[in-house]
């Protein structure tokens, strides 16, 4: 899966989780950019991304997932391994 497809799939998940509060994402997008990106929404977001890409994150991957850029890098790595 190429980077652009990954980004557009992540965007779909963001639109689903944040609904009308969602914003067009970039690699720099982080919790500061979306007011409702709190601890609980973060958990939902991760769960929806796992479902959308049919993968499961490892703990060490989750603990560094602080912005969309990190998500993309980790997803690219994981999806290329499959």
């Amino acid at each position, binding site marked *: 899966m190429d980077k652009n497809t990954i980004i557009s799939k992540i965007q779909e998940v963001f639109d689903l989780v944040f609904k009308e509060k969602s914003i067009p994402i970039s690699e720099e997008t*982080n*919790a*500061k950019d979306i007011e409702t990106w*709190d*601890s*609980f929404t*973060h*958990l*939902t977001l*991760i*769960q929806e991304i796992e479902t959308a890409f049919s993968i499961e994150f490892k*703990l*060490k991957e*989750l*603990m*560094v*997932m*602080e*912005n969309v850029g990190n998500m993309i890098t980790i997803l690219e790595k994981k999806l290329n391994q499959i």
Partner: protein
Amino acid sequence: MKFNIRNAATNDIPFLVKSVLEAEKAGSEIISYCSIFNINQEKLSNVINTAFSEEVGVVVWDLNTWIVVEDPQGNPIAGLASWVELDNFSSEKQKFQYLNYVLRPDLNDNHFKTKISQLQKVALQRNAGTRQLDFLFTNPDFRGKGLMKMLIGYAIKNCSESCLQLQVLSSNYSAIKLYEKMGFVEETRLTCIGLKSMGLLADDTKICMTYYG
């Protein structure tokens, strides 16, 4: 009796876990994490112990974050966590991410959602770049000896950030009195009526206190 301050070490982990639990209880029997994730204290202790011993990357439950006071035999008798809040991955989010990974709650469960949304009403902001103190605890056998004053004084002296912040329940009068004595001032407070009666938190009101150097 001579007391020393030192960085926490692997042997201190059981004491650090106890500190987390007791600080969360703040004199009550309520521990938010147990209520939210529907687990008992023993399970929570194991999960936090793992965070410390396996260095999973949760800053508040990392050995390097903690300082302790030891008795003349080297045993930890008071402790606190002290860290600089990150810019875009809050310590709270890290903690929840870890607990969620280990405990796997059903995120769609309405009880779980309700508890989380109630607690978020008193989720005080930890400002990025500031030094945060949390889980301040003194073994009851050694209270009244100024050990927490020693630890907070040490944290203040070694703080190179613009300010130090901590959070405290409004019913924890003795702690608030000590923090005020040390120079902390109330910054903000958040209340959610019903948190205590629902068994989610030991008090309905949480206060953020700040020390400006």
